[in-house]
């Protein structure tokens, strides 16, 4: 056909793919924001479960008996401080300060890792007391919601370790800057969800 004649004339193999990505600048950040908003729906469904089953103790331990508010205060402080230190890492990145960025990233990561550690300790303690997720509807929803949040924080820490290595090896490449921005949004978002968790599940749960 006609096209083959053109190909023979130019003597180039035809391409059926794009050599450049048709991606808008900063498009990842908006896309990641949409992902976070989607994540809100997961958490909203779990919060709705806690709202409905929050007092279904099935004769088992009540929220006031099993939830440890002192530990909660420590965890809340850890997550809030880690959110701010991640902000400092982003500010250091804006100054092209690699050492500062890595330091603040490490601080944020350690704080979040301690948070996860304390949460696992709390879960193990509750299960040992016979207040595991199978005991009552309240405990099932509690473990699902707080566990889902804890899983998010765990994956955030893993992501942070990967990006830490990336920045150490390759510095502030455009891709690394974009990835760090996305992780920063993720990090602040998890702290935001935690506000709902400690307010509604723990503090109001104890009152109900």
């Amino acid at each position: 056909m006609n096209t083959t004649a053109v190909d023979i004339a130019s003597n180039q193999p035809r391409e059926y793919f794009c050599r450049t990505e048709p991606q808008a600048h900063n498009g990842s950040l908006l896309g990641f924001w949409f992902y976070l908003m989607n994540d809100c729906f997961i958490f909203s469904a779990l919060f709705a479960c806690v709202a409905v089953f929050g007092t279904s103790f099935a004769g088992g331990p009540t929220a006031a008996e099993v939830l440890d508010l002192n530990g909660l205060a420590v965890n809340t402080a850890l997550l809030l401080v880690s959110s701010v230190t991640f902000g400092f890492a982003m500010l250091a990145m804006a100054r092209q300060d690699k050492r500062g960025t890595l330091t603040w990233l490490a601080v944020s990561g350690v704080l979040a890792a301690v948070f996860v550690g304390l949460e696992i300790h709390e879960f193990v303690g509750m299960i040992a007391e016979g207040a595991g997720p199978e005991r009552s509807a309240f405990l099932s929803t509690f473990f699902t919601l707080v566990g889902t949040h804890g899983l998010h924080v765990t994956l955030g820490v893993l992501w942070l370790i990967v990006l830490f290595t990336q920045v150490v090896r390759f510095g502030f490449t455009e891709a690394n800057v974009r990835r760090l921005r996305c992780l920063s949004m993720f990090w602040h978002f998890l702290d935001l969800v935690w506000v709902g968790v400690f307010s509604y599940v723990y503090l109001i749960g104890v009152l109900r």
Partner: protein
Amino acid sequence: MSQSSSSHNAAAGHGDGMQAHQGSLRSYLTGFVLAAILTIIPFWLVMGHAFSSTKVATFVILALAVVQIFVHVIYFLHLDFRSEGGWNLMAFVFTAVMLVVVLGASVWVMFTENALMMPAQMNSTMSVPISR
């Protein structure tokens, strides 16, 4: 159309995007202080038993949580009318509306159902018409 808009973004959007998402030391510290205050008040309320009515305490804690969520969104996530040409805000508002529907409707439906399933209610409202 897509060609011109993407080249525009590449040229002008880069600096804007950086500004919109970076925040400043001041914004992070303001956010931290506000968030800390909004966290300490509900903890003090519950742990210090500094309330007379459980209903009032619940309402106060919920209200403070909503305010703190906005503090986080504004000072940490830097959401405003300008970031990403307003799309961030649009998505956020849509999500907020949907959350109110999901949470509010779930609570409403389930509590109404619980109320109707109470044995006392059952006798008074449901026994008459069907079986006899």
